[in-house]
């Protein structure tokens, strides 16, 4: 039976699973780092000292975490065995929590 014609294939490639999970972790890391540097000035100063601006360092840190975890997760067996269907929920929940975390923090802080 040809999968392409039935439309019933399931599962995702290791790279898709790995980088999707990496994105879910990275968006949460992004919010946690935003809170940390806003609450702890020495961290913000340290990040500023690395590239000249804390925002630039923050963005680079996110990219490194996303790419690094993506490569690691792609090669991790446990991630490869994850239920593909759950990844959609994990990513959506991570983005919702991360975005709401930023809004609430900066609205009340």
């Amino acid at each position, binding site marked *: 039976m040809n*999968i*392409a*014609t*039935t*439309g*019933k*294939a*399931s*599962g*995702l*490639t290791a*790279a*898709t699973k790995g*980088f*999707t999970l990496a*994105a879910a972790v*990275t*968006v949460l890391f*992004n*919010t946690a780092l*935003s809170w940390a540097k*806003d609450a702890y000035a020495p961290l913000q100063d340290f990040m500023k000292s690395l590239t*000249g*601006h804390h*925002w*630039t360092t*923050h*963005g680079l840190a*996110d*990219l490194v975490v*996303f790419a690094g975890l*993506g490569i690691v997760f792609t090669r991790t067996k446990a991630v490869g065995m994850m239920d*593909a*269907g759950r*990844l*959609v929920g994990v*990513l*959506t929940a991570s*983005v919702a929590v*991360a*975005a709401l975390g*930023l*809004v609430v923090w*900066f*609205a009340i802080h």
Partner: protein
Amino acid sequence: MTLIPTAISICDVLLLAHAGFGVTGCLAGVWVMVEALNARAENAGRIRAAAWLAAACMAGAWICGGYWYVHFYPAEKILILAGPWPFAHNVFMEVKEHLFFITGILALLLPVVARENLYANAIARRLVICVAGLIVVTGLAIEGAGAVIDHGVKVALLRSNGKEHRQ
């Protein structure tokens, strides 16, 4: 023919390019969603091209907006904080500058997940629609925050200009 003198600085170009890239990235996200909802073997190439367009546009918005934010925003920040809408910086810019990273990461993820054969895989189709949808929603929220920040500068300038006129 009357020539209208213009004074468009690199600061203006970067800011408008940032917003333009952001809107185009959101539209590319909508394009991916629509194509993925109607995924067939024939439009697989278009889905991948649109996913790359979304990623490229968000990267452009990141670079242009980042350069503008680091080099030109501090002067506007002072104006906003001294004006009647300080929350335009304290809430909207603070959220925008950090929420943008989420949109950026999702935009970089999109071409990776769009490599799946969507027409033959319902889960992959759902994932691509989810990632593209999140790009659109967070991208539009960022665009809206940008408008509030701009208005924060405008009301600050209008107030200071009004004071000058009264003196």
